[in-house]
């Protein structure tokens, strides 16, 4: 029985207790990723050593970068008496040795179940003088048995607002806009910032992992690379004119918290993947800059549209299987629909309100041709069963699709998190007009490679 032949077609058996080959991972890794998007922040995993080690390994495998984080090193003792002593020691040690500006504590299933009260322990640390002047400890509750890695990202991003954002004046600062980018690559964050600056805005992006997890080689070990949102910026977010939250699951909670705390108006929209979604993002920014769109952005848009036109004949009617994070899936689906491809199978293990409704909106009258599943047991095994019963033309998602791609010999574009088997993806954005160009090129390349491979000699052609 080979690995690749485990999944069989036929009736799709409904499982209740078992997840096979998950399309998600747990909250803390998302929290760690978000925390790395604060400048001079050291994430801290309040739990067993393994958690921290697994998250750091996963981030290193995906970004090919060192991922720094401290561990609570829980023992039997801590699990009986609570993790207060561990956290106090950790705070002292980390500020002494690693000198971060911020320690971002996230919990684990262990410390959550024990019931450690992180704010109370942190206060205790401040009372004991363990937190140096001008340094901070923030936290997010990220039990692994609730939600998934995007939830953890959302929780830590919200913590940035809860701990730092301040409203310091009556009127808001014109053109200062908060952008919450969602769980995207460092290159995506850089691209979103570039667009905002081109629009004449003064963006505060949080979190911002660009310059942290795609940092250059400097010849020294940089505990804290140059990138990341600063504390001052996070404080100043409270005076911004507007918050634009990209992705309701990952960015929505922080935007809402910022409105509640500092009355910064917010717009939550999908990730700017594809032409229509990027248009929406640009229009949102246009409403803040006095109503102009610079030539450079119009030019980029025009080029994307031109490319879509050049390519559309090849995409017609192709069906796609997608898996990954809800915000990404909605964006990708919209992009695919815009070039007449059908997101036929969509699977996410991550819970999130309104995902199914959002997918329904995107799919429109094609909704009856698609299988969309969310939550526990919405895993790669289920997707594979669907594909066995009725194949599709393309796979798009993280590394975990490679087994299906090989077993069923389906063209495959890697997208999302994690990508553990390719290098370089972290440098190329998939958001904005430029990002869409890259995604479409990737899709068409694998489809045409397949056509070249499969076509008989007589129809194997030089021009396509």
């Amino acid at each position, binding site marked *: *029985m080979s690995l690749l032949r485990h999944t069989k077609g036929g009736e799709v058996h409904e499982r209740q207790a078992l997840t*096979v080959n*998950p399309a998600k991972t747990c909250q803390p890794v998302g929290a760690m990723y978000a925390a790395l998007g604060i400048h001079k922040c050291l994430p801290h995993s309040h739990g067993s*050593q393994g958690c921290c*080690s697994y998250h750091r390994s996963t981030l290193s495998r995906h970004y090919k970068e060192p*991922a720094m984080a401290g561990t609570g090193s829980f023992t039997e003792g801590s699990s009986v008496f609570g993790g207060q002593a561990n956290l106090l020691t950790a705070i002292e040690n980390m500020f002494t*040795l690693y000198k971060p500006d911020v320690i971002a504590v996230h919990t684990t299933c262990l410390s959550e179940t024990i019931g450690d009260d992180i704010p109370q322990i942190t206060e205790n640390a401040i009372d004991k003088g363990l937190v140096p002047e001008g340094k901070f400890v923030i936290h997010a509750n990220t039990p692994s048995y609730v939600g998934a890695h995007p939830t953890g990202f959302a929780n830590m991003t919200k913590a940035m607002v809860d701990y730092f954002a301040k409203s310091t004046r009556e009127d808001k600062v014109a053109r200062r806009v908060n952008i919450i980018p969602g769980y995207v690559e460092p290159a995506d964050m850089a691209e979103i910032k570039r667009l905002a600056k081109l629009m004449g805005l003064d963006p505060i992006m949080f979190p911002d992992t660009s310059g942290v997890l795609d940092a250059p*080689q400097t010849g020294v*070990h940089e505990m804290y690379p140059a990138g990341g949102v600063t504390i001052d910026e996070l404080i100043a977010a409270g005076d911004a004119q507007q918050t634009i939250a990209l992705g309701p699951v990952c960015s929505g909670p922080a935007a809402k918290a910022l409105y509640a705390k500092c009355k910064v108006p917010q717009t939550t929209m999908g990730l700017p993947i594809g032409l229509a979604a990027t248009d929406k993002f640009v229009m949102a920014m246009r409403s803040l800059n006095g109503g102009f769109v610079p030539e450079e952005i119009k030019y980029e848009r025009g080029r994307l549209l031109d490319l879509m036109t050049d390519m559309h004949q090849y995409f017609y009617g192709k069906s796609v299987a997608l898996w990954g994070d809800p915000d990404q899936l909605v964006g990708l689906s919209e992009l695919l629909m815009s070039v007449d491809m059908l997101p036929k199978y969509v699977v996410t293990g991550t819970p999130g309100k309104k995902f199914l409704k959002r997918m329904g909106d995107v799919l429109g009258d094609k909704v009856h041709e698609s299988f969309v599943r969310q939550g526990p047991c919405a895993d790669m095994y289920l997707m594979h069963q669907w594909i066995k019963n009725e194949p599709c033309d393309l796979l798009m998602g993280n590394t975990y699709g490679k087994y299906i791609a090989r077993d069923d010999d389906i063209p495959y574009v890697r997208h999302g998190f994690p990508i553990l088997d390719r290098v370089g993806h972290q440098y190329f954005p998939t958001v904005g007009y430029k990002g869409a160009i890259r995604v479409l090129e990737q899709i068409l390349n694998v489809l045409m490679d397949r056509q070249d491979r499969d076509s008989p000699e007589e129809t194997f052609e030089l021009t396509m």
Partner: protein
Amino acid sequence: MNGHNIMTTAIENNIRLLEARKAQVQTKGSEPFNIACEKQSVAGSVSQRACVFCGSRVVLYPICDALHVIHGPIGCASYTWDIRGSVSSGPQLHRMSFSTDLQEKDVIYGGEKKLEKALLELIAHYNPKAAFVYATCIVGLIGDDMDAVCRRVSARTGIDVIPVQSEGFAGSKKDGYSAACHALDQLVGTGDTSDIKPLSINILGDFNIGGETWVIKDYYEKMGLQVVSTITGDGRVDDIRKAHGASLNVVQCSGSMKGLARMMKEKYGTPFMHVSYFGIEDMSRALYEVADHFGDKDLLKRAQDMVRDEVMRIMPELRKIRQDLEGKKAAIYTGGAFKAFSLVRSLRTLGVQTTIAGSQTGNPTDYKQLAELCDDGTIILDDTNPLELAKFIQETDTDLLIGGVKERPIAYKLGVAFCDHNHERKDCLAGFEGMLNFAREVHGSLCSPVWKFSPFRQKHKEAVGSSQTTEKPKATYIPTNVIKPGETSGGGGESKFATLTIGATEVAK
């Protein structure tokens, strides 16, 4: 030796260590050797270590016809899904990820029912030879009676369902090894041993990464030994069941399998010996010692013949590679300390000096032995972190780091070559063939032209040009067919220095 002074000063002056960690770092030769180890990591350290669950999971994972079910929230299953290149010659069931994906309500009401359902469903579907059920942190905390569930399912299905007590917080990775050994102990002794010959062994502690178990097994079989079971590389449940029928346990990887060897000695009287399969010296010694154990002349003769043939086969290329590597410096950071011994020797074979040697889980005996093996001035580390590692590498001017997934980007950021000797190695590094692969990997990274662009090397070039240091000049980026090993040592000759400092393109003149 001048390296000694430089490095001692490095520790004292330039690197800030946590007070509680000071005893876990020592420089060979600078003081009576007495390293602290086997300690829980200090809270707040950026440790490279993992947990109990991780230890059990990596050890049992290669048993490829068993079901491996992770009882806990999804993370523990996601992170260990097909991450270890332990190859199987048959079933691939071990590479699937099965999880009970515990949710909040399960944490409140308990996960036993869910586990039972999942197991019944899986066993009906896959009909495995046995099932391992791993406990994660949360299971220990909410008090699920995993033993009872496993017993029930076992009784109902007739399949051995073995609980692995691997709650993450219950110790270190090493305790996970021990939990795995206890699980294996439940299988050993349940199979028929009537077809086992007296000249027979079990291979313990090799995990068949890159097909290493196959290479080792082949050596032993060529010697004339029957290999009863391989635990756990390319492992099979039925082979493990009859492992007690073998006359000797040959144990590699000091941490993970010593436990099982001891249990088998106690229960069945099976003697065991420690070996390593990395490097020519250790590989040959392993074969000879096993032959010695049986006191069989034919075995020894065949081992000698094989060693001679193999060494002759790989030596020409090794010699060639050594010319390029002579005088380079390496840092080693491994999971267990035992592997570090072999690596120090293997590197010596290649003309590479070890400047830093450390492990995640070594014990006092390991480190003492490691220190004896290393040159004066070598820094010995227990449970280190990226900050220390990076500083030591720079201050000892090390050219190569050997480690695992978390160490790789640290090396690359510094502009230092890297060789993965952990789960993510793709080539067989064991045996004679493996020594050659190891040499090629080290050579490939160390002599890559990319380093000539790296800022660390650039700075170094400037430093070598101006400083009074009596250290060996670096030759990382130098095509070494131009600079012979003899010419680079000592480092006094100005004319040679001048050539060395100019830059790769001009050096070739």
